[in-house]
């Protein structure tokens, strides 16, 4: 177990997720019998290296948050394995997990809901240290001061309560708490979605600086394609519980091969009015189907303009096809939809 807490060298694989599945039962009737299942996450695999950010992008209900929570075992997986630093933690008990959680922490979207309003900021940041007996006799107070300073908060304000802080400052408190145990990996679940643009940029820079200084691995969940591009090194695109495309961010953004990725990227706004009418917008028809009854074969086929019979019959594997990185489309084909600065030289 000592290996768990030795800091991984930059670039070393620290997380391996294989065939991860998470179903939620749908219960009905007096006896609460299971009448169906929400297929929230269905056969997701990936790896994460120290110092690296994997961005997972997708629309509401695609299972990206459930996936992240299952990886850090806030939810129990239905199937698949999660290996952290060479140790299979899939079936770890709560007690065993406590030790693992020192190394993997989470920052939530809503800085208003994620902090206990009755605790001072100092208590909030000290709590993980206390739980792990690292506060008393371990210079806990000084440590908390350092953490607050590290995330750009004045330690003198440590005795204030969360409501006395703005949204951006609260998110900094959430980050300080997540960093308290010196984890090697952070799950960032929509970390800047609740923040205004000018504050969002401050928090994004903070996250980048912390990663640079501590070699943290980030699993970043977001619906915002621009935020993902800015922070992530690699990007996975998720639709109805499955990864449909994964690769280095530059490749996914400039040579996407899956129709869903292309539709997403083409619909994402770029704040240049001169682009109006010049960019092709792929407008998908209809809504996302219910994850309780996902379509057979390719789950995207009901909204896809390329769909043929085979799409309803065969689940497309996530493998390298038309582009230089894996995608899961029977009719994989590169289509560039985002103007690239590099292309112009």
């Amino acid at each position: 177990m000592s290996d768990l807490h030795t800091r991984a060298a930059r670039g070393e694989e620290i997380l391996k997720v294989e065939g991860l599945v998470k179903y939620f039962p749908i219960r009905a009737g007096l006896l609460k019998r299971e009448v169906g299942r929400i297929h929230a996450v269905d056969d997701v695999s990936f790896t994460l290296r120290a110092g690296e950010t994997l961005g997972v992008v997708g629309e509401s209900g695609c299972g990206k948050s459930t996936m992240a929570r299952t990886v850090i075992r806030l939810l129990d997986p239905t199937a698949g394995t999660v290996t952290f630093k060479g140790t299979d933690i899939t079936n770890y008990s709560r007690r065993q997990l406590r030790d693992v959680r020192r190394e993997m922490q989470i920052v939530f979207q809503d800085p208003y809901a994620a902090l206990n309003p009755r605790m001072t900021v100092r208590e909030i940041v000290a709590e993980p240290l206390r739980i792990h007996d690292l506060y008393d006799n371990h210079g806990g107070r000084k440590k908390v001061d350092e953490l607050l300073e590290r995330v750009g908060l004045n330690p003198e304000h440590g005795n204030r309560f969360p409501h006395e802080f703005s949204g951006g400052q609260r998110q900094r408190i959430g980050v300080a708490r997540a960093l308290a145990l010196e984890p090697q990996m952070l799950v960032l679940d929509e970390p800047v979605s609740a923040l205004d643009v000018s504050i969002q940029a401050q928090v994004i820079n903070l996250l980048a600086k912390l990663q640079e200084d501590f070699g943290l691995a980030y699993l970043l969940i977001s619906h915002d394609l621009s935020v993902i591009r800015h922070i992530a090194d690699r990007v996975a695109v998720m639709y109805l519980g499955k990864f449909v495309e994964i690769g280095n961010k530059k490749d996914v953004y400039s040579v996407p091969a899956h129709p869903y990725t292309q539709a997403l990227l083409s619909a994402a706004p770029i704040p240049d009015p001169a682009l109006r009418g010049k960019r092709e917008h792929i407008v998908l028809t209809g809504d996302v189907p219910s994850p309780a009854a996902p379509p057979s074969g390719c789950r995207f086929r009901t909204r896809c303009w390329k769909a043929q019979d085979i799409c309803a019959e065969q689940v497309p594997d996530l493998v390298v096809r038309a582009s230089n990185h894996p995608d899961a489309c029977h009719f994989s084909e590169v289509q560039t939809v985002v103007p690239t600065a590099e292309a112009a030289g």
Partner: protein
Amino acid sequence: MAEPVLSLKDLQVDFHTEDGVVHAVNGVSFDLYPGETLGVVGESGSGKSVTVMAMLGLIPQPPGRILSGEAQFGGRDILKVKDDELRTIRGREIAMIFQDPMTSLNPVFTIGFQLGEAIKVHHKEMGDDQIVERVVQLLRMVGVPNAEDRVDQYPHEFSGGMRQRAMIAMAMANDPAILIADEPTTALDVTIQAQILQVLNKAQAETNAATILITHDLGLIAEMADRVIVMYAGRVVESGDIQTVFHEPRHPYTVGLLDSLPRLEADEKWLRPIPGQPPSLINIPPGCPFHPRCFLREGREVCRTDIPPLRPAGSADQKSACHFAEELKGHRSKFADVAAEGPAS
């Protein structure tokens, strides 16, 4: 230039709260011209929604209080007209679309009934059959599939995107002269947003309504607006033609907002955030409300003492409320050349 359809002058709105007087809107003026889309952009608390709500008599008084202002529309000042006259203006001549259609629709009535009511209120001469026909026609126009059947469904049976379509149908029902859309796609996923924008464009083209689009999303403004006003701390800090303002901003706040945005189409190591926090509207800083966060204020007394008026700056009809707007001459935003680079294909 044509006569404006709506001309707002010097609107000031306060709210009396337990913590003190909130100065939400502090002298906002703008003109809205026939057929144009005016974007109103700003972060939370900038006063962008309150401005419009106050104009339409939709803020409760108390705690709200309109201290001054004049809103010329159709030969009358709608800030002075009686409540029942304002009610006929709202919905008929000025229609609104809000962020969350679930809270704007009544859950216990069918979509068809609610749309029918909206028409009936203003068209007492129409018979029931005519109204049903018009409702179905409107729902078809906004792209609700099987409109004949779906008129009998309740709001909860519609998805978020479909509800927003129904709201647009309701807004267009009486051929309004002005359409006000307040964060119309903020609650929606990017692929659904793309659909709704298409519908909005179509509805606008069909009715030729002048549109006020209120949003925090600069990408959306770039995509939709002809002119833009940028708000900060209850004031207009910059206004002008959309391309001029986004390419050559002449107010340090607009410069900072655009710099803060992560990019979809290029890789950047660091963002340039605006330092600090937006001011409390109870204690707005003296002088220019932006001066505590501004990069031009260094060693300049006037920024801390005098409120800069909105005055011509840069080209065409561009205006800036900065004492030193001239110093931004030659500055181009990072999005100024995206379109020139073109799609990489």
